[in-house]
């Protein structure tokens, strides 16, 4: 067979593996995701037709739900690959297996990031203005230009390594370590860089004192490191039940332990920010007042979420720190959900909205996402989860359920 034929058969073979051979729950899951995507297509079409006026973003709060999700997902993409670090540093054989899944999660997360950016742009049809060589990029000063470059490079690297590994496994040929290992090693600083560049996007703007803090990049990395692996831990437990996927308990516990330290660091950095704002008590405190309480005597709609995020973080931190609760599946899973929710709020509404409220001229516009925004976001998450589900199903079929895969030819 020629390479083209092999590649073609790989695509069709994996497509079949993705869509066939699942149980009822699997198809129900795919149906739910499909529904999310279809309804989002209509919502996005409505937005494309009428403009972003169908969202609740306005000049005062010019970034909202879409960019909040984008920021959170960049963190997930970064953290998914950062698990590679302990695997190679500790030469911990049980963790090597999870590298592939980390990369698949990174791919799905980056795809979601790019979709959110497209959804948020005023002129998504002009995306080609961002392609180096064809468009006109404002380098080196525009951080957003750098962000678009590093995100795409990161996507390319992860997609290449993951497809290559799965391709080799599909045809049962040994993979070329000299090709894979340098790329995987390269993806580690890339992972740090995508999230750092995204943080720089915010903290480089002196006009927004809520973000203009040197500590924002470390906070991003720390909170990413807690949230990304949470998804993977839940995934591994599911895979263990539904397939022949094997992962040692100690690997899961190690990841949970690392998440505890990351959350500890995250809470410390958050505490440092809080001290500086409240102790110095300058004008800039007004954003934190909006986040945790409200302004001009009016309660803020995001305050309950901000407090929820803080409480969840602290609870999850202790659940993961204490070895007993870390090892018990129930408490560990509760911890995963709490951490995920907490960081989702922290990087989403608790990051974006207080930065814009009050705005640069002191005016307050209270932003809550509109129905269109929620629908489009649901669709983007649908695409990401669908992509991830299909890729995981294929990988598990090839790598762990080989006899089952063969039966479906």
């Amino acid at each position, binding site marked *: 067979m020629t390479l083209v034929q092999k590649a073609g*058969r790989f695509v*069709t*073979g994996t497509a*079949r593996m993705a869509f066939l051979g699942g149980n009822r729950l699997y198809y129900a899951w795919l149906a739910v995701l499909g529904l999310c995507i279809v309804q989002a*297509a209509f919502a996005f*079409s409505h937005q*494309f037709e*009428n*403009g*972003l*006026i169908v*969202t609740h973003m*306005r*000049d005062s709060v*010019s*970034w909202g739900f879409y960019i909040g999700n984008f920021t959170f997902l960049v963190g997930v993409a970064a953290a998914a690959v950062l698990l590679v670090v302990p695997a190679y540093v500790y030469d911990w054989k049980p963790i*090597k*297996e999870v590298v*592939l899944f980390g990369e698949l999660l990174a791919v799905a997360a980056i795809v979601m990031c790019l979709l959110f950016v497209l959804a948020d*742009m*005023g*002129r*998504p*049809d002009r995306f080609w*203005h*961002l392609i180096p060589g064809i*468009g*006109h*990029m*404002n380098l080196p*000063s*525009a951080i*957003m*230009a750098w962000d678009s470059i590093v995100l795409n490079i990161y996507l390319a690297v992860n997609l290449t390594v993951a497809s290559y*590994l799965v391709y080799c*496994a*599909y*045809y*049962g*040929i*040994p*993979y070329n370590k000299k090709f894979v290992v340098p790329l995987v090693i390269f993806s580690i600083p890339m992972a740090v860089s995508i999230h750092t560049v995204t943080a720089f*996007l915010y903290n480089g*703007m*002196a*006009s927004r004192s809520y973000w203009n803090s040197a500590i924002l990049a470390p906070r991003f990395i720390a909170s990413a490191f807690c949230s990304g692996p949470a998804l993977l831990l839940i995934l591994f437990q599911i895979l263990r039940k539904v397939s022949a996927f*094997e992962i040692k308990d100690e690997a899961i516990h190690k990841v949970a332990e690392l998440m505890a330290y990351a959350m500890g660091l995250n809470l410390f950095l958050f505490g440092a920010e809080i001290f500086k704002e409240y102790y110095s008590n300058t004008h800039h405190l*007004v954003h934190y007042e909006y986040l945790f309480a409200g302004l001009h005597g009016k309660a803020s709609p995001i305050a309950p979420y901000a407090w929820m995020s803080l409480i969840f973080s602290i609870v999850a931190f202790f659940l993961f720190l204490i070895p007993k609760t870390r090892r018990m599946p129930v408490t560990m899973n509760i911890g995963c959900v709490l951490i995920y929710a907490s960081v989702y709020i922290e990087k989403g509404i608790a990051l974006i909205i207080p*930065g*814009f409220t*009050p705005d*640069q*001229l*002191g*005016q307050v516009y209270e932003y809550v996402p509109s129905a269109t925004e929620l629908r489009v976001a649901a669709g983007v998450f649908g695409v990401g989860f669908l992509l991830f589900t299909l890729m995981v199903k294929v990988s598990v079929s090839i*790598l762990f359920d*080989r006899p089952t*895969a*063969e039966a479906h*030819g």
Partner: protein
Amino acid sequence: MIDNSAPMPVPAPPATGQTRREAIILGLFALAGAALTSGCSSDKADLDEYLQKHFKDLSGDELKKVLARMEKKYSEQYGKPVTVSATPPLEGVLFGYALDLSRCIGCRRCVYGCVEENNQSRNPQTHWITVLEMDKEEGVNLENSNAYYDHETVPAPGKFYMPVACQHCENPPCVKVCPVGATWKEKDGIVVIDYNWCIGCRNCIAACPYGARRFNWGTPHIPADELNPVTEYLGNRPRQRGVVEKCSWCIQRTRKGLYPKCVEVCPVGARKFGNLLDPDSEIRYIIENKRVYILKEELNTQPKFFYYYGL
């Protein structure tokens, strides 16, 4: 497990019926995608307009073609002859602006004069100038300012007024962050936007410390009888949905030696404009003789908009 040692058996080739089915399903997806994206545009984008290069990359001939195309489009759209120019900056000119806070009475005639002169959308409403009402006792405190005051007459007792629009900074943060370079500072100091290059990411709006920039969230609407037909490519030509706009110091007027509309319309003479490089201009007189100050000086944006107290 990923095991490099033993080769794995190759899976059997798929049955031909299945491949055909797969191809049909893929084809349907492609059609659906095309259907969703094609029928959605309501702006009737010209292919030429879509593929237009960045303003700074246009050659002299290409620019002429672009301007002619725009004149045709706007004249058809509004039913009256519209001109679109690309006037170059004057030599030896660096524009500056001064506003006397002791004189402004908050009447908002500058706001609406600007709306008419610069073809701002009436629905959804766009105002490039924001007038802030503050307490005389407290002084400039943006957190306690009010942009929505609605009194019978102005000035209201105990209040003073501060209009804010683009400060045309010498070190503009909006120019720094634009990913595609759709906004830049011209030689005469005006910060301009190429509306046909802007991708609508709104990073500039986040970066501007003065709340000067506006985004076209919906499709802008101007009644044809209120349109100002003398337009400038980088200034007051009618804008599109999904792009950012802001005060351009009436580039269509100032590059021809006239004052911006807000300066002319102000009934109390609070606004002053001129060439900072001309030692005899009133703007230089103000900077040299009055107590001027700039907003948010600590951010080092170096605005060329100076507030002062003349009385």
